[in-house]
């Protein structure tokens, strides 16, 4: 006898989608599920507060900006970052959930890198935090792999046709961070000033660091 093939995946939960019982107003929907889980002791409200506070106030693109600025001023660090990003990023104490396997890809005058997740919304949380709405949008997910140049134009980024674009579709548990090029005229700036030039979009590849005026 062969193994059971043709198990249809929807079988065990499509006959009665529990979610169809939820109220139409999403706010009420969340409230109902939250209250139920709290009362069953399956979640703790302090844990929810701690999680939200962590990603609203502590983990975000400022972390990634410090990594980039350090790579700009410290060539040895940059080598380590490009060779084993997970360890190099851990040197700055950024690690863990959704950043377990980091890869940093370097922009040069010949190559421009862009990150997307076409299947869901994979994103390097320890260095960039929670993804912005546009990153999770159908428009970004569907179009970036097929027409990255048109997509980048919508972000105000016009690339020379000679520059090669590499689009990284995060289909597994590797999380990518772009190392943008250091802006011209910043030779005298220190690491913390440089970090202020590093925008979130420049670390996804949909923008460039701020220029100095």
């Amino acid at each position, binding site marked *: 006898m062969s193994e059971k093939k043709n198990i249809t995946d929807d079988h065990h939960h*499509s006959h009665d989608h529990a979610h169809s019982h939820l109220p139409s107003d*999403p*706010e009420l929907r969340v409230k109902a599920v939250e209250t139920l889980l709290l009362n069953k002791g399956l979640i703790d409200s302090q844990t929810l507060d701690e999680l939200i506070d962590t990603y609203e106030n502590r983990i975000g693109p400022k972390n990634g900006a410090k990594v980039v600025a350090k790579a700009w001023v410290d060539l040895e660090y940059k080598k380590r970052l490009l060779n084993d990003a997970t360890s190099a990023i851990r040197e700055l104490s950024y690690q863990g959930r959704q950043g377990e396997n980091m890869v940093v890809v370097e922009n040069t005058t010949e190559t421009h890198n862009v990150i997307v997740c076409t299947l869901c919304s994979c994103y390097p949380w320890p260095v960039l935090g929670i993804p912005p*709405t546009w990153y999770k949008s159908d428009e970004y997910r569907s179009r970036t792999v097929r027409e990255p140049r048109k997509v980048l134009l919508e972000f105000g980024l016009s690339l020379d046709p000679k520059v090669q674009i590499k689009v990284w579709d995060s289909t597994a548990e590797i999380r990518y961070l772009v190392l943008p090029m250091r802006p011209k005229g910043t030779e005298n700036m220190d690491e913390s000033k440089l970090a202020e030039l590093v925008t979130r979009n420049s670390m996804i590849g949909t923008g460039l660091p701020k220029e100095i005026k």
Partner: protein
Amino acid sequence: MSRLHDMGGRFGDGSIPVPRDNDNEVTNSEPTFKYEWHAKAWAITLAAGALGEWNLDISRHYRECLPPKDYINFSYYEKWLAALTNLLIDKKLVSLDELKEYVSAAKNGSLTKFSNKDIKLDHRTWLAKDVQKTLGWGGPSIRDTNLNPVFDIGDKVITQNYSPNKDVSGGHTRLPKYAMGRVGVIHSYNNNHVFPDKNAHGFGENPLPLYTVEFKSSELWGELAESQNDSILLDLWEPYLKLSPN
């Protein structure tokens, strides 16, 4: 053969919703969560996941398995909440009767009637004091196995032409439709990782070699490719690939 979440390359989507400031310049600042309920839906999903009744691949697959009409109509965090609700019921953490009771109370504004209950925390519940520690650990997917990768860097490979999940019809996979049956080159080998096609269905972790594979834009989009120079790189498990005959 795929589902709606697998949207890479699809036609018909409009402009990217790029946020702009008052001077119409692209802005990088946007609240982490636009509404409080977004934050709550996200945090509840993480906290319920920490109970250990399902893994990341299962929760991804539950979002993908939402009926197509719901997948299209739901906003991002509505999908998260719907998938979480289905998981809570299927994994028997909550009964349908309990859910209905709370939903009807929410609808008529009487949820507060439950609020004076003595709450006894379940032994699996994620405590606030452990949040930073658990986030710092994350959930690594690399496994130590003695498997050696079959392919070498530079090998020309062709991806499976059909959904590679042979165990479950419509089952979870991480090979996107736009890259099925295409020729690419092994760019790097990234160790052995838990195989989502098995893990999403509770068939075990089955760690397998994971590669980054580079595809020329023209291989994926033909004459529609914006530039012959551009390329797209995907992280693909070994069973998704075969050596290309030419």
